[in-house]
């Protein structure tokens, strides 16, 4: 009986969904709602109003700036929750079960990682700094940086990794995204414009352009590096195991 009702309900939802798909306008049609409201303005005025030739960056860092600030805060809150529950690792002392395993990462893996990680980080920095003009930006570059550090940790072990990127250099970077975003956002308000305005009123064109570029760089770099470090910290907190900790005097 329950199964019959369930099947009936599912069939009803399915019929409605198929009906709705039939009513949808053709994909890519110029009369669609997504191309008639805000999109034309973003496409036509994005470069002069937001100052980024990549429209996605213009939307993320200017038109929908509050959304992005919320996202940055969400990532930071996730890190806070993980650290509150699991605690921090001890620099150079925390180990994982992989570090004490008898099967070490092979020479092939270690050499590949050693050659690959610098290239990946270089690519991530390119994505962060070039997000204004090409696809990419702070979030994407940050995720790639985080992934490269995770790769390094998996091949060389947690003690090596925490010695290279110790806790005391990570802590200031973790909150940098939120601080940079708020600082850049409220600079606009201080100058009498809106939140996250890059083009300050009452300045010469050349000075305004320089300020705009500097502010955008600060936000992109802030989101990028902070995002990467936050991913790294979450991973370190999750992977470390207390029972395998090295004794400080034995090393």
């Amino acid at each position, binding site marked *: 009986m329950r199964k019959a009702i369930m099947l009936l309900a599912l069939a009803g939802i399915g019929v409605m969904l198929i009906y709705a798909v039939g009513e949808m306008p053709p994909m890519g049609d110029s009369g669609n709602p997504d191309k008639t409201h805000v999109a034309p303005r973003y496409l036509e005025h994005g470069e002069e109003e937001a100052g980024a030739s990549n429209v996605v960056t213009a939307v993320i860092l200017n038109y929908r700036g509050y959304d992005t600030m919320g996202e940055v805060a969400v990532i930071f809150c996730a890190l806070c929750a993980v650290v509150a529950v699991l605690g921090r690792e001890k620099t150079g002392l925390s180990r994982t079960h992989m570090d004490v395993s008898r099967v070490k990462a092979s020479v092939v893996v270690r050499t590949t990682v050693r050659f690959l990680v610098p290239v990946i980080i270089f690519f991530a920095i390119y994505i962060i700094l070039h997000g204004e003009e090409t696809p990419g930006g702070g979030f*994407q570059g940050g995720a790639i940086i985080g992934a490269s550090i995770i790769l390094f940790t998996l091949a060389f072990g947690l003690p090596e990794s925490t010695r290279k990127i110790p806790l005391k250099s990570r802590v200031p970077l973790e909150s940098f995204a939120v601080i940079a975003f708020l600082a850049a956002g409220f600079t606009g308000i201080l100058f009498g414009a809106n939140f996250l305005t890059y083009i300050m009123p009452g300045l010469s064109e050349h000075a305004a352009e320089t300020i705009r570029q500097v502010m955008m760089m600060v936000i992109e770099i802030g989101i990028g590096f902070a995002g990467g470090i936050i991913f790294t910290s979450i991973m370190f907190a999750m992977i470390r195991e207390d029972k395998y900790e090295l004794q400080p005097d034995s090393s």
Partner: protein
Amino acid sequence: MDWTLNLLLLTLLLATAIAVIRIRDLLAAAIVFSAYSLVMAILWTQLRAPDLALTEAAVGAGVTTVLFIITIYRTVRKED
């Protein structure tokens, strides 16, 4: 040509999505989920959304898979 590639990718997407739900071994499910993210990333580029494709490839296929695998290692591998 474009059409066949999209059809192939969408079929693969559906297959991996169903596989993630059906597989009882959580480690295998995490790896299939990473394959799902990779197919999704290629689809985002097909839909002319390279920004999203970059995010999907780095976060979906890379970072979350590692976090899932760490979590599975520290809990249980089999779903009951």
